[in-house]
């Protein structure tokens, strides 16, 4: 299935901004983090199609996964 992975802030370093690729069915956000060598503790916000995602919930074809490190502002 096709997934779009968007990375932000420091997570872009050495990985890029947007990754669009084919992934096996039942791929989870956890699998994606592992494939990108991103540790779970470095992820503060994980969104699937703009809403809070779950690490172990399989993604669907066409999903967009957005991953942010701890950041803030006001």
């Amino acid at each position, binding site marked *: 299935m096709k997934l779009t992975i968007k990375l932000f*802030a420091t997570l872009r370093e050495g990985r890029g901004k947007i990754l669009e690729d084919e992934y096996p069915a039942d791929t989870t956000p956890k699998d994606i983090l592992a494939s990108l060598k991103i540790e779970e503790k470095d992820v503060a916000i994980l969104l699937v199609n703009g809403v809070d995602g779950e690490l172990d919930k399989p993604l669907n074809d066409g999903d967009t996964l957005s991953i942010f*490190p701890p950041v*803030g502002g*006001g």
Partner: protein
Amino acid sequence: MYGYRGKILRINLDDKSIKKEDLNMEWAKAYLGGRGLATKYFYEEVDPMVDALSKENKLIIATGPLSGTPTPTGGRYMVITKSPLTDTIASSNSGGRWGAELKFAGYDMIILEGKSDTPVYIDIQDDQVEIKNADHLWGQVVSKTTELLNKEVGEKSKILTIGPAGEKLSRIASVMNDVDRAAGRSGVGAVMGSKNVKAISVRGTTKPEVHDKEALKEVVSTMNKQIKDNGVTGEGLPTYGTAVLVNIINELGAFPTNNFQTGVFDKAEEISGETLAEKYLVKRTGCYGCPIACGRHCKVDDLEAGGPEYETIWGFGADCGVSDLGNIIKANYWCNEMGLDTISASTTIAAGMELYQRGLIKDDELDGTPLEFGNSDAIIEWTKKMGLREGLGDKLAEGSYRLGESYGAADVSMAVKKQELPAYDPRGIQGQGLAYATSNRGGCHVRAYLISPEVLGLPEKLDRFELDGKPQWVKTFQDLTASIDSLGLCLFTSFAMGAGDYAAMYNPVAGTDHTADSILETGDRIWNIERLFNMKAGLKKEDDTLPKRLLKEALPEGGSKDRLALLDQMLPEYYQLRGWDESGVPTESKLKELGV
């Protein structure tokens, strides 16, 4: 006297008298300092029905007991007055170095009364205080005023000033300090301008006494470590500044675009914190005593200046449909030079763009610079004209509500209590909507920053669409924030600290015995006295609301698609938790309990 300096500078501009009064320590015990204590003074001394731009209004500039101490971020001051924008209590907060310097000069606060018949500035050099002629400064932009004053009174003095917008009584004028820091919101600069006070220069050479130096040293070291170890204050804010939020809020579909017509800006990446860091960032800057240093200095063409912050990038960017970050940096610069609040100035231009879109503002009013969404020249040109009240800029200077009203379309104003909303669409972040609607100074995100739990997951992650529990979160955040402001610290410390940490810092400074509970209770007291002032100023339950668009028009796309702000389902519980009656009025028993 520990923490506090124990002195107020009371300056009457009618008869040019300068008095040094003892600080009321009973009140300081109950209201801490800064925002809380100044509001207590204001409440006791000023008729809530006063016309905000009349000489009967007063302007208080206050520091907190931790301002100018070694506590992290202890450099802040607040401007308390009745707002000409909202007719509520105003309390605008700023960093930089000026606040700490006032403390070093020996004063906790300054109260300005009356009105000078000619432009003046006030020069403070420790115990020497003079009111001086400011004819030569009147009309100057902020950086020039600062430069001229530093030549006149000394390079070491810190300068607080208004720009042309404050002189011309723009209801969205800010008070500026240290060139590019702003007590931005609620038109406090217009009140200073109405008194014909252009600036206050201050130089101080003594520090406040501390009750227990050793204990303070220990707690400051612990808190600095807590700040460094926290992902937001230790890495996110120092690396990217506040602008890193652009992409996050846009991904949630809660990034107000084209005057809140949608929550997704398809060019967000072009104006993001990441792009800012890559293309424009020159250096990071920090306020007095700050280990975070979220401030930015950016360069575009031949212009190098402080900022921009997330809110400003959003306001001139997505909310005006503009993706040219270079021009956003320039518009931010002109806001600072004119002394305009960047949130209200940018979103008033966005409201003007919607009036143009609706055909209500015509081309013949626009001097060749159309107010079209996406016009990146318009944000610069109309900011300058707003500051100088030229052409349509005269109407823009009144803020979005009065601008819309003048065209029979006040509904273009995305404001609460006539103050423009900031950069988070409450249709996608429900608790923030309740915080906006109940804010004591109108549309504002820093009376209770629910983005922290609802988006960033601090101190714990909440579902942003859920309503249950949000009224309690809003109340707790409002109370805690009131105390943080009143102590004289930056709200950003709260990403890494809780109520108990603030008590732990205040106690060794002032010799008090505060706890987490008493810090929150003090915040509750401050919140209630602000509310009481607003009620006496004529505000009603009906004013605790959101713009109709946010209640009635669902977001059309993105991560918050089809959502509305469900305020009515949260407000009654909020009143109940506050101990207010069904009309939102603080009950006698609640006020008695708090000793208000």
